[in-house]
């Protein structure tokens, strides 16, 4: 297991250093999420009380849609010069490729959230009264679940002709239970309601993450053989 994690880190650090150099994907993700926030800030009147109800949904909307941009790129870049075959012919476990991609995508989406969520609060003139640690926990667990499933489906759809279109079609229905739980938990935490209510949603999200992580981890090898 240690060697799988070590190889995963090598792959993730290659992807991240590549991204730091080119800033192609992260640039597009930040611009996209900021534009979505900007458009919604015009659509809703920030002085209206309804804004409070919209913010938890918007947090996840910008995460998922900007994240899909990054997920699409994550395996397509491996098709350049057929580098994926190079990885597959290396003496590493196929699941370390998956874990490496999960790690790189997670850090990329987290970096985008670090910019876009404060921008969201700023443009909607939202004052944060909730517990910041709980908010972070909800965001991290929700994002992780999204990336776990998204990375797997990105690998699956990368071989298809219209992978950019196929990924959201496959991903969004699978994400619905996670997103329902994430939006509810975010609303509870942001509105500073009883944390106990958020905990039950967090349990559901954690179970989703673990279940899909285990399934994707073991099934990834079969996707790779077909690519």
């Amino acid at each position: 297991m240690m060697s799988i994690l070590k190889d995963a880190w090598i792959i993730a650090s290659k992807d991240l250093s590549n991204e730091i150099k080119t800033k192609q994907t992260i640039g597009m993700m930040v611009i996209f999420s900021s534009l979505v926030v900007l458009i919604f800030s015009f659509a809703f009147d920030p002085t209206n009380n309804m804004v409070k109800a919209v913010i938890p949904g918007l947090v996840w909307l910008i995460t998922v849609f900007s994240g899909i941009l990054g997920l699409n790129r994550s395996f397509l870049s491996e098709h350049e010069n057929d580098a994926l075959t190079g990885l597959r012919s290396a003496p590493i476990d196929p699941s370390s490729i998956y874990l490496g991609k999960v790690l790189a995508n997670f850090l990329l989406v987290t970096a985008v959230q670090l910019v876009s969520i404060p921008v969201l609060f700023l443009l909607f003139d939202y004052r944060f009264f909730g517990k910041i640690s709980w908010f972070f926990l909800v965001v991290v667990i929700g994002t992780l679940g999204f990336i776990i499933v998204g990375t797997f489906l990105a690998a699956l759809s990368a071989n298809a002709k219209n992978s950019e279109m196929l990924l959201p079609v496959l991903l969004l229905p699978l994400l619905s239970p996670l997103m329902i739980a994430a939006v509810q938990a975010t609303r509870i935490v942001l509105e500073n309601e009883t944390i106990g209510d958020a905990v039950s949603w967090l349990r559901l999200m954690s179970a989703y993450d673990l279940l899909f992580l285990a399934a994707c981890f073991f099934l990834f090898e079969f996707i790779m053989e077909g690519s």
Partner: protein
Amino acid sequence: MKELGNMLELRNMTKTLGDKLVLRNITLTLEKGEILAVIGPNGAGKSTFFKCTVGLLQPTSGEIYLNGKLVKKNSAEMKQRIGFLGHESFLYNNLSPLENLKFYGKLYKVKDLETKANELLKEVGLYLFRDIPIRSFSRGMMQRLAIARVLLPDPEILMLDEPHTGLDQEAVALLNTIILKKRESGTSILIISHDFEQVQALADRAAVLRKGKIVSAKRLGGEVSMAELKQWYEAEVKGT
């Protein structure tokens, strides 16, 4: 000096893709320090044969033995000992030659990586370009770097799929020198090639793959003339 014994042995390897039988009962051995060329017409199954041997595809049936030991599915040990040069370079365009080699070197757990990568870059003539992203490289430069990538972990078996494609005369001579040097040090080499000149110059033995089956094998070792080699190949491909 050639060592004796089978480095790689394929027994009755069959591969079906969909309902098409691509490889039919392939039985082949590669001795230690031997260069074996697999030749055949387009669509004969040469690349599938390579992919099955490297572990990129699972054979439908049959066994692969490495040094007399049966190879298990997705064996990391097998992959560690095989250097695979495919049709594509498997390199990352945004990374420099040194970064590409260091990345693959880490995956192959190569010791003293920095020194070894720099030495190989000198050997393939890319040392001066070591820090430039490879996206602007020509096909020949990419192929040189791909060769360096394959040699980095010191594999016991080299599997080269049309390695001379896109190389200029100087690079062909360099590659042939590297291949012959590797053979001298005991590395077994399996080459897929359409280039009869290179097959005749390098290979100790040639095998013809036709319609997914090894139909014939012939010992070359520099004793067979080009005309004789072509005549033999054509006769085997036509099945006469």
